[in-house]
């Protein structure tokens, strides 16, 4: 799939036209592995990637896709049918790149095989009429033909040189250099195949998951801890590395404008149960690597510590609940679910729920309370109390960040208004009707981590490095041929020289002249190079 101009026609002998399925297959294969097809496939690939950047993609932001469905209810299902929201996993996208890689393999692999012998090949003998070549010159000298060529041979360092004697007392010299251009070229294209293999390996056996860890809590790498996980097709839970991570402390700092300045998590971790704990300062751009599984700090927020008491004053709930940030100033939403409150009058089981809104720097905005800054300068949580059935026992899974309000009623005060209050740390809201109370005991920070295991990434990296080396070699090394013919011409010797550049990087005329000038200079000249 590279410079077709290099491939001498003899290397691809034209088979006699054959009929039937075999002939069709052969001509189809030739068509697929031709440069033209590869070029067209390349452009198709570029074109096919465009919608992936313009339309919302599920893999990047599923919420955007839902939004698009809402805004374009007629168009969205049609687009969805052609995988337009998952372009890079779409069958048609895969068809293009697989065809391209097949074309690439069909071209590169046979050429690699041929290259093994081409690397040992001798330069082709001088053509009969050197003066017909694109770059040629001739001159007379008093030296013998054999002397001229022997001197030239000594000076063609880095060239592969053959000298052949010719009838009539003359001799010719054939030289070639730049064999590694094709090696670089093949290395580049072969590395692309390896890169694809690396990507595929990661996609099949790797996984990526998100986990939220509160300050002071531990996380063990088992499926149960994950908030979400997207495994590869051939992933199995048994492949999860058995490590544990403890979040000792999380710290974020901000610029005066409220933009983030630094995030860092101090963690302790053990590679497997029973291993000694080690410390790590985990930051953005500095993931924690445990046995080829990597932990990335991807987000953070505040977790609220509440204490809920029943009518009798006994503690019914004492826990810390993460509130999820809704904006850049970390105004955050969350809920508290208290299933085990003391039975109410008449023995009816009663559960309590609270929906809360935390503002780390509480200010009064046009639409009520809001957060003016992401750091906790003036923290407060605004709570709304609910009672009734939390729906925890009906077997349906539910989010720990939202209340299912079907079975719940608001707790009302004596005047029939919903019971709500904005609490500062340490303050308590006593619920009307003697239902109980909730105390905002304090808050801490939590961090969200992305856990990634990609068994193909090292292969992909190696392929990328080789690809780059191959590319530079194939673009920099120049493949050149040079011929000299010296024959007696009366009492003197006439020397003909010609050259051929086998790649198009320009100024061969100039280089040819420099080489010839060097070859013609007196042997007494100092050693070149």
């Amino acid at each position, binding site marked *: *799939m*590279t410079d*077709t*101009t*290099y491939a001498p026609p003899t290397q691809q002998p034209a088979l006699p036209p054959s009929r039937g399925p075999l002939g069709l297959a052969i001509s189809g294969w030739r068509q697929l592995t031709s*440069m*033209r097809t*590869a*070029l067209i496939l*390349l*452009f198709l*690939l*570029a074109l096919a*990637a*465009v919608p*992936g*950047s*313009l339309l919302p*993609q599920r*893999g*990047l932001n599923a919420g955007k896709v839902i939004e698009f469905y809402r805004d374009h209810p007629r168009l969205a299902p049609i687009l969805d049918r052609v995988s337009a929201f998952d*372009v*890079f996993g779409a069958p048609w996208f895969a068809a293009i790149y697989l065809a391209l890689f097949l074309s690439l393999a069909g071209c590169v692999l046979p050429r690699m095989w041929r290259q093994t012998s081409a690397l040992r090949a001798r330069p082709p003998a001088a053509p009969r009429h050197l003066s017909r070549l*694109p*770059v*040629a*010159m*001739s*001159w007379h000298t008093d030296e013998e033909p054999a002397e001229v060529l022997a001197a030239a041979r000594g000076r063609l360092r880095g060239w592969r040189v053959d000298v052949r004697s010719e009838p009539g007392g003359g001799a010719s010299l054939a030289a070639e250099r730049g064999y590694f251009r094709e090696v670089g070229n093949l290395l580049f294209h072969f590395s692309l195949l390896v890169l694809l293999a690396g*990507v595929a390996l990661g996609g099949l056996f790797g996984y*990526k998951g998100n986990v939220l860890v509160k300050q002071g809590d531990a996380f063990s790498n088992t499926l149960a801890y994950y908030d979400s996980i997207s495994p590869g097709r051939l992933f199995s839970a048994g492949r999860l590395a058995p490590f544990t991570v403890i979040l000792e402390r999380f710290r974020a700092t901000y*610029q005066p404008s409220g*933009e*983030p*300045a*630094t995030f860092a998590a101090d963690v302790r971790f053990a590679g497997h149960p029973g291993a000694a704990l080690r410390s790590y300062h985990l*930051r*953005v*751009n*500095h*993931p924690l690597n445990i046995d080829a599984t990597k932990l*990335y700090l991807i987000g953070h927020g505040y977790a609220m510590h509440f204490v809920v008491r029943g009518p009798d004053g006994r503690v019914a709930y004492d826990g810390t609940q993460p509130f999820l940030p809704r904006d850049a100033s970390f105004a955050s939403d969350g809920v508290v679910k208290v299933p085990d409150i003391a039975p109410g009058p008449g023995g009816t089981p009663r559960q309590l729920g609270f929906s809360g809104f935390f503002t780390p720097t509480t200010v009064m905005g046009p639409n009520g309370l809001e957060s003016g800054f992401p750091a906790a300068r003036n923290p407060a949580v605004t709570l709304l109390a609910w009672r009734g059935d939390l729906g925890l026992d009906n077997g349906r899974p539910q989010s720990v960040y939202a209340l299912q309000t079907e079975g719940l009623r608001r707790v009302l005060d004596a005047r029939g208004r919903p019971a709500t209050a904005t609490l500062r740390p340490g303050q308590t809201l006593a619920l009307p009707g003697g239902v109980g109370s909730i105390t905002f005991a304090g808050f801490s920070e939590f961090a969200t981590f*992305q856990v990634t295991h*990609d068994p193909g*990434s090292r292969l992909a*990296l190696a392929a*990328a*490095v080789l*690809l*780059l080396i191959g*590319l*530079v070699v194939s*673009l920099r090394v120049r493949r050149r041929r040079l011929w000299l013919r010296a024959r007696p011409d009366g009492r003197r010797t006439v020397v003909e020289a010609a050259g051929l550049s086998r790649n*198009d*990087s*320009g*100024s061969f*005329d*100039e280089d040819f*002249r420099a080489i010839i000038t060097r070859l013609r200079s007196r042997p007494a000249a100092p050693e070149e190079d």
Partner: protein
Amino acid sequence: MPVDLSLAHRSDTLLFLAVVVYSLAMLGFAAEFSFSRRAGIARALTRADAARAATPATAARIRQPAAVGGAGGIATGPPPGAGPATVGPHPPLRSRLDRSTTGDHLGRIAVVLTGLAFLLHAGSVVTRGMAAHRVPWGNMYEYSSMVALVAVAAFLVLLTRERVRFLGAFVLLFVVLFLGLAGTVLYVPAGPLVPALQSYWIAIHVAAAITASGTFALGAIVTVLYLLRAKYDVLTTTGGRPRVSSVGRLLPPATTLDRVAYRVHAFAFPLWTFAVIAGAIWAESAWGRYWGWDPKETWSFITWVIYAGYLHARATAGWRGRKAAVIALVGFTALTIDYYIVNIFLVGLHSYAGV
């Protein structure tokens, strides 16, 4: 550390001065261009051409591809009086050496002015970085300034290798417009980097992307000139009347432009490849995956694929020449989309790099 405001201000002043001097240099190049038109000897010569002309004693016979100087009044015959041993496709030496005309002087002055403006521009970039205590490519304004600086540097380097002074007016027109856009629409005051950018990879990945982009820009300019010249050649041989392409008369032969364009692209493409790979390595350590089809990644990939197509097309029969040149320009369009459209309109992980 707080931003050094007086240094930041000095950076802005230096950039303004650089734009003024670039504009003067551009006028100088443009004047040289029009003078050479009057003289009718617009010829870009490689140093090889000059060397060849300087040693006519060497009995040489260089057969050029037929396309060289096929049209446009370029002297292609043997120099008058030269013996049969000295057959070359080049115009007489004398007319070129005698070319110390006003135009040539203007051209030299323009080169000096370009060098001066380049130093002012580099000073602006360095002071900006010192003011903010970081690499001076943390947002679109700074990135644009760097791309323009690289384009000028690539032009100056190319000047030492090839006779490409004719490019000056076009390169500086691009640079002045690009810097104008950067200094007005994209301008942001100097400030610190957001956490996601605080990595040594910003020095590697972004620097490579800048160098590749600036070089690709130069390649695109040469390619446009090549297409104009090729069109001019076609029209004059078929008896058509060139309009826009009449500028082709002032340009070097199409083969020279094609070769220069290829050299520039062949330099930029591995750099772009490196920038994408370095970006993937950084993405792996910052976001937990080396490739995620983020809009910036997608468009970098599209750009890479198209430029790869250009390099292949040049080696494919039936695609060489104008078709390949058009592919290179499509690649530059993708690069432009990757920069402006993706940064400003498409929300992705690279959005913090924004305006």
